[in-house]
């Protein structure tokens, strides 16, 4: 049985080998019976490519131009291979081939025209088609010219930039030709920049001057580099040097202006994070006189909620933040109410004791999270719509995540103000803040108001955590870094004053970012802290102190 089985296998194997051979032979014959037009264009391309088999670099350059002008689909590949020194001639057949070096010293070769694999040859089996630097520059330009006609606008921009870098003025025509048919605004801008770069090197003074004037609004690094060169170039005429200097100055001004706008934006973004973190604290501190040192941990819980939501619904990553915001509000809010009912309820009127007890709570929460999720940072993904950046002006772009968080902070703030000003709960909260005894006498259940207020403040901390999860690492000690800052914001703004918290948070954020370039990040922070310490001497109740009897206690 076994023997029979084996022999039948052998027979089948033989049949298989034979059929394979047939296929291979047929495949080899296919080009012979191939499509007429295709072989025609191949033949003409073959003739063009064969022009490269010369020793003269000048003739090679001619050949490269001819290849670039050819309509064959493999032109780009051939030119790129020539540039990268991967184009060879096979010695035996004198064919132009693509060759990839093998570890053993030989080459893996493919036909340059058909792209068909030709197996391997030894080290001496193929000869490199050498190029010099001038030819390389030309090739780069030619390649860029081909890519300038690419379908993808990003590729076209990259091509235009490559041409500008190559500074080969023979590419002018290519750019001009493309400019006539180009419709994409960004590509047009890139091409114009390249043209300006060429014109800045022009021999004709009027063209040069015009180019210098025209580049005043251009923030491209190449233009600036060229201008700097011209302004220090002893060969250039006085007028040109002067013009270059002026233009450079105006460009620097624009750059500085953009830099300022960017700094303000970064500052506002940092400030919005501070406001988000501090605003819940402002409610619990201001309204209830409770120092909640566990506030940072409530923020941390919000960030972890985001992580859990993303883990539970991996498919709905794009919507995860929309789910996480209410979820985090709920989780942190519930924990907050738990803390209030379990601990703070017994400590009203003794703020220092609440400080100590809540610090204990923060340690317990940190360690709990550490036990469940380990001490390692958890990865929180950023949805597609939040990544990337938004180009406001040429050379001034704002990242989406910071922009959204800024908007989000504004939204949360507005919602909170509405809740406190327009709802029943808000009315009761304000009543209890102003005079607890009187509010109780009017029938307000102050214990319930306390619990809900604390829940609200804690919930907002959770929401802040969702925002923070998009900016920093999510770990058990996430909250620790924000607690001192949040207290500073509340104290600076004036306790119990939402608008004060907003103004304080944003201005501290902006101040921090403006100090950073001069003093470094750490010293900037230290300076801000010292400033607040001094500020409190001057206005012990913050920027916007509470007025009236409530402030006396």
């Amino acid at each position, binding site marked *: 049985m076994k023997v029979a089985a084996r022999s039948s296998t052998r027979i089948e194997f033989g049949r298989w080998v034979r059929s394979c051979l047939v296929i291979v032979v047929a495949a080899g014959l296919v080009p012979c019976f191939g499509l007429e037009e295709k072989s025609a264009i191949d033949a003409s391309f073959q003739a063009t490519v064969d022009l490269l088999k010369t020793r003269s670099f000048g003739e090679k350059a001619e050949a490269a131009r001819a290849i670039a002008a050819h309509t064959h689909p493999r032109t780009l590949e051939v030119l790129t291979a020539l540039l990268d020194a991967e184009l060879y001639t096979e010695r035996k057949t004198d064919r132009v081939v693509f060759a990839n070096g093998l570890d053993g010293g030989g080459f893996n070769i493919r036909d340059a025209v058909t792209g068909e694999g030709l197996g391997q040859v030894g080290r001496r089996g193929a000869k490199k088609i050498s190029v010099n630097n001038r030819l390389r520059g030309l090739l780069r330009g030619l390649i860029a010219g081909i890519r300038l006609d690419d379908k993808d606008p990003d590729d076209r921009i990259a091509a235009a930039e490559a041409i500008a870098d190559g500074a080969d003025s023979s590419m002018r025509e290519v750019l001009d030709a493309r400019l006539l048919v180009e419709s994409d605004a960004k590509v047009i801008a890139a091409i114009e920049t390249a043209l300006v770069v060429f014109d800045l090197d022009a021999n004709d003074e009027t063209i040069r001057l015009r180019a210098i004037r025209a580049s005043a609004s251009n923030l491209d690094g190449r233009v600036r580099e060229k201008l700097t060169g011209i302004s220090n170039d002893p060969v250039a005429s006085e007028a040109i040097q002067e013009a270059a200097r002026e233009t450079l100055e105006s460009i620097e001004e624009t750059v500085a202006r953009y830099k300022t706008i960017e700094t303000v934006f970064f500052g506002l973004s940092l400030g919005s994070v501070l406001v988000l973190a501090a605003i819940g604290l402002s409610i619990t501190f201001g309204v209830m006189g409770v*120092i909640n*040192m566990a506030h940072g941990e409530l923020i941390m819980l919000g960030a972890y909620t985001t992580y859990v939501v993303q883990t539970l619904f991996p498919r709905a990553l794009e919507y995860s933040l929309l789910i996480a915001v209410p979820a985090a509000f709920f989780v942190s809010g519930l924990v907050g109410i738990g803390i209030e009912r379990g*601990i703070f309820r*017994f*400590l009203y009127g003794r*703020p*220092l*004791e*609440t*400080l*100590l*007890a809540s*610090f*204990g*709570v*923060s*340690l*317990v929460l*940190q*360690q709990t999270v*550490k*036990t469940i999720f380990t001490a390692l940072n958890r990865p929180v993904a950023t949805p597609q719509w939040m990544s990337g950046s938004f180009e406001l002006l040429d050379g001034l772009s704002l990242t989406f995540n910071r922009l959204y968080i800024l908007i989000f902070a504004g939204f949360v703030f507005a919602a909170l103000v509405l809740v406190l000003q327009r709802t029943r709960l808000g009315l009761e909260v304000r009543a209890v803040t102003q005079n607890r005894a009187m509010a109780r006498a009017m029938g307000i259940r102050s214990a319930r108001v306390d619990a809900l207020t604390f829940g609200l403040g804690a919930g907002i901390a959770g929401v802040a955590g969702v925002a923070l999860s998009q900016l920093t690492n999510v770990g058990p000690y996430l909250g*620790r870094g924000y607690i*001192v800052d949040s*207290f*500073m914001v509340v*104290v600076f703004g004036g306790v119990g004053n939402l608008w004060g918290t907003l103004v304080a948070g944003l201005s501290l954020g902006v101040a921090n970012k403006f100090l950073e370039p001069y003093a*470094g990040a*750490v*010293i900037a*922070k*230290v300076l801000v*802290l*010292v400033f*607040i*310490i*001094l500020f*409190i*001497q*001057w206005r*012990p109740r913050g920027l916007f102190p509470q007025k009236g009897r409530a402030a006396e206690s």
Partner: protein
Amino acid sequence: MLLGRLIKQDWGRSILLGTLGVMCVVVPVANLLVPEDSAFHVSTYTVTLLGKYLCYALLAMALDLVWGYCGILSLGHGAFFALGGYAMGMYLMRQIGTRGVYGHPELPDFMVFLNWEELPWYWFGFDAFWFAMLMVVLVPGLLALVFGWLAFRSRVTGVYLSIMTQALTYALLLAFYRNEMGFGGNNGLTDFKDILGASLQSDVTRVVLFVVSAIALALTYLFCRFVVTSKLGRVVTAVRDADDRTRFIGYRVENYKVWIFTVSAVLAGIAGALYVPQVGIINPSEFEPLKSIELVVWVALGGRGTLYGAALGAVIVNYAKTWMTGAFPEVWPFALGGLFILVTLSLPKGVVGLVRSLPYWLASRVRYMYHKWGSLIRAKFSH
């Protein structure tokens, strides 16, 4: 008169001073004279550990002086402790001399590593012991004086003051983490070799440091006791209980506060200076707000406003910490957090308060029993 006031003691005081006195004799003998294989031998590790606890107790006492007697809850006392420690550390650093890794005669290793050419101006003088000791007192003292003068003059009180002190230590933490500050950055100051010519590794030096710590603690206690029982101390206590009323009577409340705050900071600095040669390192983590808050719990657990209670609390918590971080490191944060909550909710007067109320509680139980059983017995016999 003065002597009488110092000697008139209550139980806690006798126990504290008695324990310190006994330790000053027993620990050196048990470490240096008793042979190592004996059951009564105390290892050098234990001596150092005890010395560390004594430094913490001294620090806690400093905080109790300002919190327990003046009602100022400082969340930044760790900063004064660390500054004192850094001043001592700088002296010890200069004592290394050419024995560092790079063997530079003047610059500490980390400066050579950072390619610094010469010693920064604020390091000058620290090769002299007396200058370093002066700085141990002056640096924390001056910082406290300036900060306190600014804060108390503007009547920053209560919670605001606590948060400000926390911001102070946080700012120092950030600053000391920077290499450019010239205090060793992240790693701080370490690899000390000797103090006043005596090797820090030898048992005798360790024992001497321990004894010095014990004596310092005892002296600090007597000094604090003297301060709080003096007329000035009475005013300070009045400030704690009724800030406004004391002001209305005519006292300059802010001056008293600044004074007591500064004294307390100096004591904290001394504690830091004793601490550093024993543990052999000082780094910016001592500025962590967490450490300062933990310190508050030591005092709260022991019982604020008693001085010896603070020392007791420091020893209890730190002993528990040493034991637990060894045995169940995972549980320690839970225990510490629980302690914070427990002390504030159920032990407002701390362990000392609990012990003090124990006789009353026992007496009330006995009275209750007497009435209950007594009436039963009487009822039985009357038949």
